[in-house]
């Protein structure tokens, strides 16, 4: 009996008809591993977790390597998931820098104790105070504005001069918005909570909610398209989606922009809500010096001027000229609140959205 079993064991691979395919698969598994290890040969690198996916960032990495000889190894992903990976890895993490759009995301990393405070003269000189963490946990390197877009043939720009106007009865059934699961939306409301208090923020969210033309869905660009298509008269989005559609290779996108105008809201009041893309050094960074060097590079003359024409964000430094079409939109008054307010009021903002039924 035992012999039969032994023989069967020997025979098993032979009678397995898929064995040749199995071999190929096994070989490619080895190849995959080899491919991954290949990059790790030299050790002059810095590891970056980044929730930014712009092609422009790859130009930055190349620029950094050219300037310093240090290779940037990136792992892209959503900010929330990268945070959980960083949390699980704890003191064993390979990540030296964590980069994300939106201060709310960066605040969560700080709140989890996964950033270390860094302060250098270069960073302090180049990053305006309201665009960085007060303790130096994270530093902005680009800036985005939250703008109102409107359909030109239905709305006059002065009718949407402020965020408050979107809650007026004038726009009943005429507003589309992105889901409140999105950080940009949370940060916008968090800023309002900081300036005007939770009650005011709740009233505003409820008023805008009452004006919805449809349940929140789609991306920022989808809101612009919905306005252009006549599903609604106005919406809110980050400025760079508007400008990117304006420059798009797809003629359909450019047609959209022809039908839609935008305003920097609240110029007569507190100023337009701005947010950052930024980064910080992880608490357990193994290559701390290079990580700091990388953050400094992001706000250097070279990087800031390189980024300006490559994407449609504003440079973090006001003395660096943005892309020509952005410059043409003119300077605007920025909301000025402590950056960490976007994080501190985030949970409350989510609660308010939930309560008023803004899903």
């Amino acid at each position, binding site marked *: 009996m035992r012999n039969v079993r032994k023989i069967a064991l020997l025979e098993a691979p032979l009678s397995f008809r898929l064995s040749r395919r199995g071999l190929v698969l096994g070989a490619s598994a080895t190849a995959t591993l080899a491919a991954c290890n290949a990059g790790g040969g030299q050790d002059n690198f810095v590891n970056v977790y980044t929730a930014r996916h712009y092609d422009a960032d790859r130009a930055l990495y190349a620029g950094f390597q050219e300037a310093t000889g240090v290779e940037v*190894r*990136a792992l892209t992903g959503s900010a929330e998931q990268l945070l959980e990976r960083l949390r699980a890895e704890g003191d064993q993490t390979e990540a030296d820098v964590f980069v994300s759009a939106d201060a709310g995301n960066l605040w969560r990393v700080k709140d989890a104790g996964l950033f270390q405070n860094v302060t250098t003269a270069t960073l302090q000189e180049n990053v305006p105070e309201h665009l960085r963490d007060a303790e130096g946990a994270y530093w902005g390197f680009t800036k985005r504005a939250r703008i109102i877009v409107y359909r030109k043939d239905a709305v006059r720009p002065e009718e949407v001069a402020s965020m408050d106007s979107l809650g007026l009865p004038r726009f009943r059934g005429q507003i589309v918005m992105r889901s409140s*699961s999105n950080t940009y939306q*949370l940060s916008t409301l968090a800023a309002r909570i900081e300036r005007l208090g939770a009650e005011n923020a709740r009233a505003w969210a409820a008023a805008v909610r009452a004006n919805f033309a449809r349940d929140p*869905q789609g991306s920022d660009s989808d809101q612009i398209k919905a306005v252009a298509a006549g599903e609604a008269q106005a919406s809110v989005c980050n400025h760079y989606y508007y400008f990117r559609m304006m420059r798009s290779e*797809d003629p359909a996108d450019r047609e959209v922009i022809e039908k839609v105008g935008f305003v920097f809201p609240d110029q007569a009041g507190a100023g337009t809500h701005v947010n950052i893309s930024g980064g910080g050094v992880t608490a357990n960074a193994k290559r701390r010096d290079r990580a700091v060097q990388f953050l400094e590079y992001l706000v250097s003359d070279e990087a800031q001027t390189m980024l300006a024409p490559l994407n449609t964000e504003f440079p973090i430094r006001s003395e660096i000229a943005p892309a020509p079409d952005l410059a043409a939109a003119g300077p605007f008054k920025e909301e000025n609140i402590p950056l960490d307010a976007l994080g501190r009021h985030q949970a409350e903002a989510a609660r308010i959205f939930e309560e008023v039924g803004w*899903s």
Partner: protein
Amino acid sequence: MTLAATPARTRAPRLDGVTVAAALATLVCATPAIAVIALALISDGGAEFGGALIREGAMGTFGLVLAGGTGAIVFGATTAWLVTLCRFPGRGIFEWLLVVPLAAPSYILAYAYASMTWAGGAAVPVQGFGGAAFIYAIGLYPYVYLAARAAFASQSVCALEAARMLGASPLRVFWQVALPLARPGIAAGGALACMEIAADYGAAQHFGLSTLSTAVFRAWYAHGSPGLALQISAVLLVAAMVFLLVERGARGRAAYSGGSARWRPLPRYQLNAVAGALAAVFCGALIVFGALLPLMWLARLALLHANVQDIVQPFVNSLALSASGAAITLGLAAAIAVAARRATTPLGKSPLFAAGMGYAAPGAVIALGALSLFGLAREAGLVGGLGAALSLAALFWTYAARFASAGVGPIDAGLARLSTGLDASARTLGAGPWRRFAEIDLPIAAPSLAAAALILFVEILKELPATLILRPFNFDTLAVKAYSYASDERLLEAAAPSLLIFLAGIAPIIILARSIGRGRAGVTS
């Protein structure tokens, strides 16, 4: 024809090599899902909104599973019957073209349709609940089609001919003989489709729907509470287990035994001109909406922005990752399926459910479970950091946990065709478990194994969230590339990698479709 219930109750379960291998495989596949449930129980997620999120999400998921699942089952079963048992114009081409929509992930179909119908002036806008149900039905029916076709193809000619000789019309044969005989296959395919729907996040999110999956991410992203996300996922997992139990229970009462040993090609009904044209239009419409239209749209966008050099390495990575992941998962799935098929006790069959759990949870959640386990192991000093090797291992583990069920299903259905007497005869003649596995189970299940391998390959090719969170540095796949661009709302740039995922999946899927026809004994071509 033997449609009698003849459960194989011939021996008490005994510990042997196959059982041990299956137990280990089950452990590997079920651990992340079990971790999610365990972590959900101990985390205090801040359940302030948990109840409302779960209530609303459960209703949304139930509705979508019902509408999308019914659509997928109707489309899949009908087309499988048409191409297997009827003759009509284009049948031979439709036979394999019908599987092509399987290559498109739901999230890519959703993006493609949303932008297409928007640009087309929204004649029939694909949006909201109806839009999502449409995407699921049109994108997932091939699961049912494949399983049902394999089931139809292996049916006894005698049963069908007997019915025909007794004067039954084609429709009546379909309803009363072919369909009941194919029920295990249809149920297995339908269950896969339903669990895909429950786990889908991309399409539901895109159409602004509230489901359990979107609630998971709402808890995680908006409320910043991974704990609450795990709790909602646990609800989804438990619901999936109940669903699987019900599905198994419903078809478990009758055991189907092999029918006649006299195999020959199936006779096909010649449909008349009108019926034939209708059949062709029906099959053609599914292919046009499920593949051709979105493919052409993606191709148009990709041509507007051709970023070929950016996606060569991701393409190679995708193929390598999918092939290796499929091989590993296939091995585990085969062990589980074989052991469960031999088992006669509920405990022995439990690996089927355990392996199935992961399939109904969003990939990101299973990855979160794996990450949390890794975190615990690291704190206990068992492992170091997530270097390239360890993160790949974690990734393969997550693939196995997530997709084992997609492999187990076809293999189990293949083994179901095994006459219950064969195993018993072999045992009487003194063959051990490994020998029976190698010389009986494997050859008989070989076509199903090939089918499972190809399905797993395509599933992993399409997989996004686990790959995104667990991959090593500087290692992008096509799905990661497509996601990166899409999340940055660059649909033009996202088109090329999306198109490539679609195209890379088509080849294995067509091989898969063609191989099933050969799975019928006595058919040599």
